[in-house]
């Protein structure tokens, strides 16, 4: 597939700066490591948060970090999309007979996020053993659904953020509230927040679909409605559809900044 050709080229160009690449990867590892250390220390002081144990929060944190790291790894092009608009590079993309989404996805591939991914996997593994859930195949599948769902939702937000650039040229720092901010918020089960925040991040931006809803199933809090809660991550994937729609609209409205 042509996407993999793009990716191979990007990786090759990164590898020209090998030392910097390794340092960034280690740095990414520490970003996530210190965030986790923060949560660990909070639980050393307080023994639960709104009824959730350390293991359960750690699992939640691991899922979000994994999903975010994967998203940043391959959807980074949308994250830095304002550069395309400002420098007029997007005109070149539009001239080529391939989909714009594919080309923006292929323009960048942040391999250094593997550092963060490694840390997230360790967290997930530890959390799975810390929390007292009897793991079975169904639950393992749900966990994978959660991560996939998270990737789709974060990618959707990145695309929305990029679409904004069509109208404003300048990227908006505001969108960070939903990317970095979303990652922070979803590090804890959303039930710990005020009701309106929980609702907003369940029904408008469906973080709940890979956060507390399936987590309730994993931790045995979903009596009688196991199947429903287990399948919520799949509903989250649908979030990508309206995002792609808005993107199309943006592309149609695009006026070049000239070069």
């Amino acid at each position, binding site marked *: 597939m042509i996407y993999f050709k793009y990716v191979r080229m990007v990786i090759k160009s990164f590898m020209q*700066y090998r*030392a*910097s*690449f*390794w*340092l*960034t*990867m*280690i*740095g*990414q590892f*520490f*970003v996530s490591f*210190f*965030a986790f*250390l*923060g949560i660990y*220390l*909070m639980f*050393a*002081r*307080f*023994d*639960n*948060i*709104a*009824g959730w144990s350390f293991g359960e929060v750690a699992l939640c944190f691991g899922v979000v970090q994994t999903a975010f790291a994967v998203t940043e790894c391959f959807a980074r092009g949308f994250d830095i999309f304002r550069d395309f608009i400002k420098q007029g590079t997007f005109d070149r993309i539009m001239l080529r007979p391939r989909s714009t989404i594919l080309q923006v996805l292929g323009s960048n591939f942040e391999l250094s996020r593997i550092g963060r991914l490694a840390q997230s996997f360790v967290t997930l593994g530890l959390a799975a053993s810390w929390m007292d859930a009897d793991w079975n195949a169904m639950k393992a599948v749900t966990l994978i659904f959660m991560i996939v769902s998270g990737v789709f939702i974060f990618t959707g937000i990145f695309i929305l953020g990029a679409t904004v650039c069509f109208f404003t040229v300048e990227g*908006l*720092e*505001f969108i*960070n*509230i939903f990317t970095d*901010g979303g990652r*922070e*918020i979803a590090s*804890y089960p959303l039930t*710990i*927040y*005020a009701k309106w*925040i929980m609702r907003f991040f369940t029904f408008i931006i469906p973080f709940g679909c890979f956060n507390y809803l399936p987590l309730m199933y994993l931790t045995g809090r979903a009596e009688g409605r196991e199947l429903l809660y287990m399948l919520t991550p799949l509903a989250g994937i649908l979030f990508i559809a309206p995002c792609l729609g808005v993107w199309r609209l943006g592309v149609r409205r695009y006026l070049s900044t000239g070069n």
Partner: protein
Amino acid sequence: MRVYFSMFKMRLIAGMQYRAAAWAGVATQFFWGFMNLMVYQAFYASSGTEPPMPWPQLVSYIWLRQAFLAIVMLWVRDGELLRGIADGHVAYELCRPYDLFKTWFARLSAMRVSSAAMRCVPILTLGFFLPAQYRMPLPAGFGALGLFLLSLALSLLLVTAISMFIYILTFITLSPIGSMLIITVAAEFLQGSLIPVPLMPEPLQRFLDFLPFRYTSDLPFRIYSGGISGYDALLQTGVQILWIVVLLLLGNAALKRVLRRVVIQGG
């Protein structure tokens, strides 16, 4: 010295031009503080025992951090300067009859002040008018307020002094991204920005007393709320000054060292 003061003023005025960026920053930082407080609130509500940091002190800790983020955070950086080191533009600066260390210090501290000056007023104002549980409390007293302002000014010097090492290091690594990430994320934890120092386990708190980072934000913020007061507050402000002097001397020496071996490759 007057030269460097004018440079500081010049950069300050230049920095104040980016008002739209400042408003975006205000929104993001306000949201971030709010979100943090909600997590802590949930922890506090589910705790059986009395937490070591009273709730109002925690609230002022968070809002002060968000208001003065540009002063206390090590990741606030001057991209132009960093690029200049990597692409050789720094050679022009080396030709000028100024001391590079002092020039950079003036430039970097001015950037922090201008950025914080535009953001702190709206954030604090909003903070003072929030509903009771999130409302920014008043300072513990006039003495506390005075000492807080002094200590915050010293924080600016201390943070800038620490950040100088990042720029000096860039002379060696040439690519700042990786090393910068490691330093800034570690510093964020050690200064108490990830979780407030009083909530950390006691042995870790004692350990942090011996590093400079805690004195950049934890100290002034706790002086404000009365968490550190009296003789203790004065003593720790003394430690803060000591660190500034030590780091300035070390930084100066380090910069001289790397400049002696810097090679400008054509241009």
